[in-house]
């Protein structure tokens, strides 16, 4: 058994628990970022350096920035009241699920059949050759996300009266807000 891999996986589960049970949202988001960083190391150790780089830069970096920005924009005067029972029952459920998980995974995947190996000699040839159609889907998803965010933050256009009021406010008239 690979001890380093086991330690990394335990760290992964530990950071996941911290992200779930921290009351402070900022700390939870940072735990998620650390979890991504540890996952990147696990991926790198499993001969997947490109996926590791994406995990580290996009998920640990960009998504953390998105989470922190959202937390800063939604300063809650009254924090959401969470029940305490999920925290107390969690270890019990985790152990129960862990035992079932161990039995199922060992039973199903202890004799994984060998695959056919990599179809090409490089990752670039796979991504840009065999899986090139995926890139069209990726572009569509990126544009879908961009236009989705733009549509959600769309503002109502100003009416003629609003424009007159804004001009008055600029000239030192009464303030609109």
């Amino acid at each position, binding site marked *: *058994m*690979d001890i380093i*891999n086991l330690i990394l996986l335990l760290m*992964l*589960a530990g950071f996941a*628990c911290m*992200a*779930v049970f921290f009351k402070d*949202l900022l700390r*939870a988001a940072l735990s*998620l970022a650390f*979890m991504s960083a540890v996952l990147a190391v*696990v*991926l790198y150790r*499993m*001969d*997947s350096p*490109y*996926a590791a780089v*994406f*995990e580290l830069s*996009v*998920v640990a970096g960009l*998504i953390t920035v*998105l*989470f922190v920005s*959202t937390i800063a*924009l*939604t300063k809650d005067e009254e924090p*959401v009241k*969470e029940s305490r029972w*999920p925290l107390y029952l969690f270890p019990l459920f*985790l152990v129960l699920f*862990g035992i079932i*998980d161990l039995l*199922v*995974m*060992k039973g199903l*995947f*202890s004799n*994984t059949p*060998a*695959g056919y*190996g*990599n179809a090409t000699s*490089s*990752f670039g040839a*796979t*991504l840009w050759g*065999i899986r090139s159609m*995926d890139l069209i889907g*990726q572009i569509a*998803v*990126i544009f*879908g*996300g961009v236009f*989705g*965010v733009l549509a*959600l*933050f769309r503002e109502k256009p100003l009416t003629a009266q609003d424009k007159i009021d804004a001009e008055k406010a600029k000239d030192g008239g009464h303030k609109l807000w």
Partner: protein
Amino acid sequence: MVVTNLIFVGLLFFIGLYCLLTSRNMIKLLIGLEIMAKSAVLSFITAGYARGETFFSQSLVITFIVIEVSIVAVALALVINAYRNTGSLDVRSLTKLKG
């Protein structure tokens, strides 16, 4: 290594699911979703590593990460809009919305 990874895939998925089922904060719900997404990434890479098809699994993971980022961006924009409407991050406040 493969079986150990797959056991942790299940555990991570359970932790994320537990967060989704028990949390009331909308940002926490997204964090739970992210944890489940990470378990999916680990399972893809483990499968590729076990069968010696790491290039193929990496290309799938990169596509998955792109989709994940788009989903999180749109979901966080929805959270901000919901917060502006209700003044709270509590997911139960969304049940009061009309229209």
